[in-house]
């Protein structure tokens, strides 16, 4: 290639790389109000490596971000309490409220309020007597299967106020925990965690990766238990369910088969699959639907999905979309499906404490990972410059051409995000690129040493090295992409990133690198010296 064309090409590539470097790594402000967040900072991060601006941002620095967020990564933690179990805080707050009511009525001293005061005092006494403390939780005393809902409890008090739990409550709690575990697993979110807290409450941690909208709905759906029911009407109060044929021992499963998550052209939806009878029932219900009637999909006492029926519905599978995010649609489908086909439990759960957590590995973890990668890249660069002198610049360009598109890919592809496994895969990819590049350089060095011209050496080396380098890359790409399609969680992210890194490394080491080499070398007077290649010294006989 001629010098002019080479100069033009190299200038363009340098400008492009400088622009990409700026976009990917530098955050800055311009004007009074606008802030630019680097791609590296705004890329989604997993719960371990969350990163943001909240602590370090100076006043007015990042307020104008379009999504209003100041932190990416971390996660949310929610504690669920079964019916009849209260946290210390909830119990004490209710006790204080009742005490305050008694105090205010006593202070008023009005005779007309006498009955009200007596009732308030009785309520307060009942409340104190009806709850027993064990550990940090308060448990309602009474039989679990009591017909009167107000007397329904979870434990009984023995000698010395020893708490004995109702076996039916314990069984229902275990079943609910199993369902919750299944739901969280099926969500397939990285770093998700389920903990049994204080023996009779459950804590669920989900990463912020699940999206900035609808996380509360996901958490609420996960903790919704009870039997599934399908109702139709103009409001929740007046809605009626399916009239089961008692003679045939019908249940809701004779009408609804399953619920599952489906993505219709990128739109997250919940699919409800009906049996023939279910399809007929819905068809009859919605025969005169006008938009003011609704189909309610209940789990326990809560309508997980409310669907407006604006026309007759006659489908064996109903696809419901709307403002769902993928995790929200999944959690709604899972709540319905596990209620339909899972282990039955009628224990209702309420959402207790909600926590927002930042990077689980600490605020510096992300920055240190970036520094570690930078150290690796610099070490590889130094090695290449020492071995090949100015040819190291060709490798530098190769490395940058690999690095910035990788950052853009991780940022732009929805299934990818920054986590330890991503850093590991990017670093392995860089190593693969370095090894492939060094392999071809060494091939050229050997050819040149034998007395060939530099152009013939490069050509010969690439010809010899093409298949070995191609084989290595194709094997790694195959194993990566196949693993990605089957695995889930961290391994899937690692595999997909590794696959992309392998493809990029292959393209750069076999095509782009060679072109850059030709362009850069066109300026060198002594091409052997440029590459630090030497001829073999022949001994005189």
């Amino acid at each position: 290639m001629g010098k002019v064309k080479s100069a033009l090409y190299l200038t363009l590539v340098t400008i492009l790389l400088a622009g990409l470097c700026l976009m990917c790594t530098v955050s800055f402000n311009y004007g009074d109000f606008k802030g630019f967040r680097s791609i590296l900072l705004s890329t989604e991060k997993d719960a371990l490596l969350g990163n943001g601006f909240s602590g370090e941002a100076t006043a007015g620095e990042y307020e104008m971000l379009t999504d209003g967020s100041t932190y990416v990564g971390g996660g949310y933690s929610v504690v669920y309490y079964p019916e009849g179990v209260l946290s210390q805080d909830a119990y004490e707050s209710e006790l204080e409220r009742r005490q305050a009511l008694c105090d205010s009525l006593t202070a008023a001293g009005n005779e007309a309020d006498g009955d009200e005061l007596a009732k308030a005092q009785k309520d307060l006494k009942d409340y104190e007597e009806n709850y027993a403390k064990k550990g940090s939780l308060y448990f309602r005393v009474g039989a679990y299967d009591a017909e009167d809902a107000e007397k329904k409890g979870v434990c009984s008090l023995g000698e010395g106020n020893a708490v004995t739990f109702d076996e039916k409550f314990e069984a229902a709690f275990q079943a609910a925990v199993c369902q919750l575990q299944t739901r969280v697993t099926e969500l397939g979110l990285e770093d998700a965690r389920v903990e049994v807290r204080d023996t009779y409450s459950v804590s669920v941690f989900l990463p912020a990766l699940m999206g900035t909208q609808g996380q509360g709905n996901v958490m609420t759906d996960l903790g919704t238990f009870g039997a599934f029911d399908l109702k139709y009407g103009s409001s929740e109060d007046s809605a009626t369910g399916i009239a089961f044929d008692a003679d045939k021992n019908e249940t809701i499963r004779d009408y609804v088969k399953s619920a599952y998550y489906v993505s219709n052209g990128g739109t997250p939806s919940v699919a409800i699959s009906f049996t023939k009878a279910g399809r007929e029932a819905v068809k009859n219900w919605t025969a005169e639907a006008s938009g003011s009637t609704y189909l309610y999909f209940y789990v326990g006492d809560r309508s997980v999905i409310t669907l407006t029926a604006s026309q007759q519905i006659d489908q064996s599978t109903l696809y419901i979309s709307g403002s769902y995010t993928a995790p929200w649609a999944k959690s709604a489908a899972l709540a319905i499906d596990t209620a339909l086909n899972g282990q039955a439990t009628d224990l209702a759960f309420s959402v207790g404490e909600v926590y927002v957590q930042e990077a689980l590995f600490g605020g510096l973890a992300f920055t240190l990972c970036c520094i570690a990668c930078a150290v690796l890249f610099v070490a590889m660069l130094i090695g290449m410059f020492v071995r090949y002198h100015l040819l190291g610049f060709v490798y530098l360009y190769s490395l940058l051409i690999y690095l910035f598109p990788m950052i853009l890919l991780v940022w732009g592809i929805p299934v990818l995000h920054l986590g330890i496994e991503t850093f590991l895969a990017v670093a392995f990819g860089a190593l693969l690129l370095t090894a492939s590049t060094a392999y071809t350089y060494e091939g050229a060095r050997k050819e040149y040493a034998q007395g060939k011209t530099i152009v013939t050496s490069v050509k010969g080396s690439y010809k010899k090295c093409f298949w070995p380098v191609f084989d290595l890359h194709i094997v790694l790409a195959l194993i990566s992409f196949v693993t990605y399609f089957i695995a889930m969680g961290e391994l899937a992210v690692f595999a997909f990133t590794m696959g992309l890194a392998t493809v990029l490394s292959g393209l750069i080491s076999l095509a782009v690198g060679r072109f850059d080499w030709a362009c850069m070398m066109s300026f060198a007077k002594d091409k052997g010296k440029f590459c630090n290649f030497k001829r073999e010294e022949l001994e005189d006989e």
Partner: protein
Amino acid sequence: MNKLRSNKLFALFVALSSVIIIAGIVLYAVLGFNNAQDKPATKYIDVTYGAAVVNGTVGEEDAPAYLEKSAEEVLSTAGLSFEKDHLDVGAITSGNIGASGQQVTVRYSFANATDDALEAAAGDIAKALASQPAFADVTVAWHTAESLALTKAAWRGAIALAVGAVVALIYVTVRFGVSCGVAGLVVCCHDALFTAAIFAIARIPVFGFAPLLYAGVAAFASAAVWTVVCIKLRSAWKAAGSEEIKADALADTAAASSWKLVLCIAGALAAVVLVLGLVAAAGTRALVLPAIVGCLVPAYSSLLIGLKVFEPIRKAFDKKRASKKGGYVRKKKKAELEAEE
């Protein structure tokens, strides 16, 4: 290198690998991995305070700092060592989770503490804070937590790696022959299992998902290293030209020419992991550094086991090819004889 590839030592290496893998499987079935990094059973004290403390002061000191100092003094007096985290208390509004930053929970986690000690410490902290009017609304509660295993990712990952390895090695079979493909599959499976077994046996504390990730790293490294060995095998075969080269001689030549390269690759992979681990934060270090095992195992298996597995398969194929060739010659000769007659 070829001294290490003697038949006696090969038997020793196979026995060693078998013992480690079987022991690993048994220990995994009985005890699982050591998921201590996941803190499967923890106890903690939550101290929760609201806006009055967040924005308040005690004397000249910020109220949150004073509160934490008071709580930590109590814990130190009780002889409890702890880890501290700050959590924003949020709420679910309109289907979204948000935190105002005006209510905070300071979580003190304990690795070793009895329930009684924890209850007493929580009570003491509450008493110590009650002496300050600024802390009137602070709540102190102690909790125990036991995490539940989410195993689906593990078995899906194991299947994924196995299928991935098979597909990749089908390519190796097409390019380098069946003997390379089969030996590669043995090596790849060995490396993934061997790596996971080491974590089960050595009881190295890891995160729950991590052994699978390490097995994945081992499978990837193994595929890369074995492809390099295959390339060398092919070079040796090509270098022999038209001469018949026996499988063991081929393996010897490939081993002699590739061992430095294989060690370099394994070393470079380990160096990448080491740098990432050493520079990174404590949690990252605990996650990344054990991956070194997955980087080094392929060097051992490719050179000392894989090439030895390759030899008999290759011999069998050579024999089959020779017999086919012989048959063809005989038939040809027979046909020639018949023609002469």
